[in-house]
């Protein structure tokens, strides 16, 4: 007699509570680089355009800083997207996979879009003039290779701006597909051929949630990106680069404040667009408290950021705003989790079966994770001590 259940019955690898807690934590962590990857190219283009037009050298330098860090954000966004995806598969595999199959061609289009997004972000960050010899030469045509390497401190120039637009469009495409997938996950009535959608071309274009969800995601990305710039500005100002730091701080706070204000409006639209029972679940009981917490924390964060932009010592206010942003992000993610649960509540096959716990491999994962966290701390300590300021 086999001790292993059949494929259709394989239970969860841990209790639903543990997995849902992990999903919440990892979704919050993943949201940060994903937002930066989507928002920073926009801010790069605006900073470059404003800096070029108004001869504001600080903003062009900010554009260079943003462009240089965008590849790291994109790489982290892809890497950190894996745990929420894996947890989503484990918890709601049927929903995730059915929605993916329904929009298969767009789902697969994410791959070339990622190639374009990642490749172009690196292209902008590493390009250079001239054709100095390098180890890339044997593997790439000269015309490609000659644009790759060290970065200049001033601006991204016209070619860099053009490629940043390509990067932005690609990543927006990825964002659109993932948001549309999220909408489909919450629409079990559209799964499978009963919906009458041609194979692989299902897209919830007429779903009232699509547009508010897209706006919410995009504005959230811009808000978080703006906040990261404000943080960078406050940091630089404290390090003695007053003019540049202040310009970056103000630029970041303007984007953070404006995008957050619009995001709050999108959030209201999103809640109103939810189907009746799902909307009620999002506003009732604990979910309602979480929603108000998210909104309140967002308002507090913007207030603190605005105060920071006017203050002589902005760091403490930015730090306070960061705490408020974190609270808002956690609460908002928890609300989204509840909304999805409410949307899938009537689907009996989504029932979460915890049967075959895997304590040995779970312990090993925890040990590796703790060691990994220690290693990351060491790496940051070892590489930050003597690192250049820019």
């Amino acid at each position, binding site marked *: 007699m086999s001790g292993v259940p059949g494929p259709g019955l*394989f239970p969860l690898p841990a209790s639903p509570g543990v997995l849902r807690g992990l999903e919440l934590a990892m979704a919050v962590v993943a949201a940060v680089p994903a937002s930066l990857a989507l928002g920073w190219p926009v801010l790069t283009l605006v900073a470059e355009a404003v800096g070029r037009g108004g001869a504001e050298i600080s903003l062009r330098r900010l554009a260079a800083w943003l462009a240089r860090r965008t590849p790291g954000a994109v790489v982290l966004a892809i890497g950190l997207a894996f745990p929420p995806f894996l947890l989503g*598969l484990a918890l709601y595999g049927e929903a995730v996979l059915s929605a993916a199959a329904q929009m298969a061609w767009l789902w697969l289009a994410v791959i070339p879009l*990622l190639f374009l997004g990642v490749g172009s972000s*690196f292209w902008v960050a590493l390009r250079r003039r001239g054709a100095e010899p390098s*180890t*890339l030469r044997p593997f790439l045509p000269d015309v490609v290779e000659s644009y790759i390497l060290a970065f200049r401190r001033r601006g991204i120039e016209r070619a860099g701006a053009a490629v940043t637009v390509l990067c932005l469009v690609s990543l927006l495409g990825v964002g659109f597909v993932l948001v549309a997938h999220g909408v489909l996950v919450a629409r079990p009535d559209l799964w499978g051929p009963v919906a009458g959608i041609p194979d692989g071309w299902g897209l919830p274009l007429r779903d009232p949630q699509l547009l508010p969800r897209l706006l919410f995601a995009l504005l959230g990305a811009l808000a978080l990106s703006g906040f990261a710039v404000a943080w960078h500005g406050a940091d630089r100002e404290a390090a003695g680069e007053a003019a540049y730091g202040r310009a970056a701080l103000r630029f970041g706070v303007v984007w953070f404040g404006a995008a957050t204000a619009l995001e709050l409006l999108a959030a209201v639209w999103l809640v109103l667009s939810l189907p009746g029972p799902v909307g009620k679940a999002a506003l009732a009981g604990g979910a309602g408290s979480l929603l108000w917490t998210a909104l309140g924390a967002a308002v507090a964060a913007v207030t603190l950021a605005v105060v920071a932009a006017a203050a002589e010592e902005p760091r403490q206010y930015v730090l306070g705003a960061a705490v408020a942003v974190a609270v808002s992000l956690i609460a908002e993610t928890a609300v989204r989790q509840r909304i999805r649960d409410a949307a899938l509540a009537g689907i009996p096959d989504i029932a979460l079966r915890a049967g075959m716990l895997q304590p040995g491999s779970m312990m090993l*994962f925890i040990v590796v994770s703790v060691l990994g966290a220690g290693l*990351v701390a060491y790496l940051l300590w070892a*590489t930050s001590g003597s690192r250049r300021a820019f």
Partner: protein
Amino acid sequence: MGYLFAVACYFTVGASLLMVVLEHRAQREGNQFLLSFLQDWSRFILLMTTVLGLVLAAGAWLVAAVTEPAAVFVLTRVLFWVWGILWVLAGLALCSGLLHYSGWGAVAPGHHLVVGWVMAGCAWGSLFVVNGILAFLLDPGAWLETGRLLDGFFNATFNPSLLVHAGLALGIGGLFTLVAGAETDPPRLRSVLVRTASWFALAGFTLAPVGEAWQVAVMPPAAREALFGPSGHGPGVFAIGPALAILIVAFLATGPLVRTAVTPRPLAFLLLLLGLAAAGVSGWSREAARAPWVISGYLQVNGLGPREANAARVEGFLRRARYARSRTTANAAAGEPASAGQELFRFQCGCCHTTTGVRGLRRIVQGWDVETIDHQLGRLEKLRGVMPAFAGTDAERRALARWLASLAVPKGGKP
């Protein structure tokens, strides 16, 4: 996509170790030429790891979610914590790779070297875990009885498979570095690069065929039958891999290793192409040995386990398929070769076959009548040894046969 991803992984694992070994040597000797080369070379490693490796890793999951949803669902739950461990290790390799690249000239040399070792160590740790997953898929061993994951992970094929992957990582990493190092200046730098890269490649392509042979010796008989048996692809294709490895070793031993200063880049490129072909054959052999299973003995490529397939033969497949448009074969029996057969094709054939494109069934069934197709469907598992048996009732099999026959193009006309 799987092949490109494998190449990117082999390169990252092998080249990162080679780079850190060379950096250690350069720091010890104060070799500025070598340090400059490595600073430049680390950029290529970073780009290969991120632009190619990371995106292809994401792409592999995206493709599998659409083409093999049942396998993805099962593998997610069965190997959940193993994926987690792999993610931690790969993430550490990626982070340390970014820090290593951006740390040249900005971080104290001793710390920079440690960051490099962390990167290489985590990349090799990732290879170790990936190897366990692949070995589990080929031979879940006692896991099928005990349900203990470690029984499946450390099965009989684990060690030989590790030897294969480690060998290919050393080999591919060494050959890429050889291409970059050939024809560099000054000659002293070239000599160091060519010799070290050649030793890596030589060691790798010596280990890989040994591992391949060992793996064949210990793999389950069914897998060996799938690979070499009369219904499989025969030993000819499998032998290409070791033959290419021997060729590479012979080239390296008589060329770059003895004439380090005059290794032409075209020769290095040729060796790299041979190495990439060897890696491709190795991956193909592993897949062929596993066919038609995703997890040997547990889950087939059509998303059914043995128990589910048997139940479908008794109760009918369409009755059990949640998203089937048609639940009966009534219309097919009435002479309409429509929905039931098409649905069965989508569920049971569509994971590997299309109608007109890749492995197009219209071409395969050309000239066959319904009876012939029905007969072949009844013995799918014996045809080429890589297909699962049809899982459904006799009526469902005939419905599928009827629909497949309708695909055939009559002479001089359209279907």
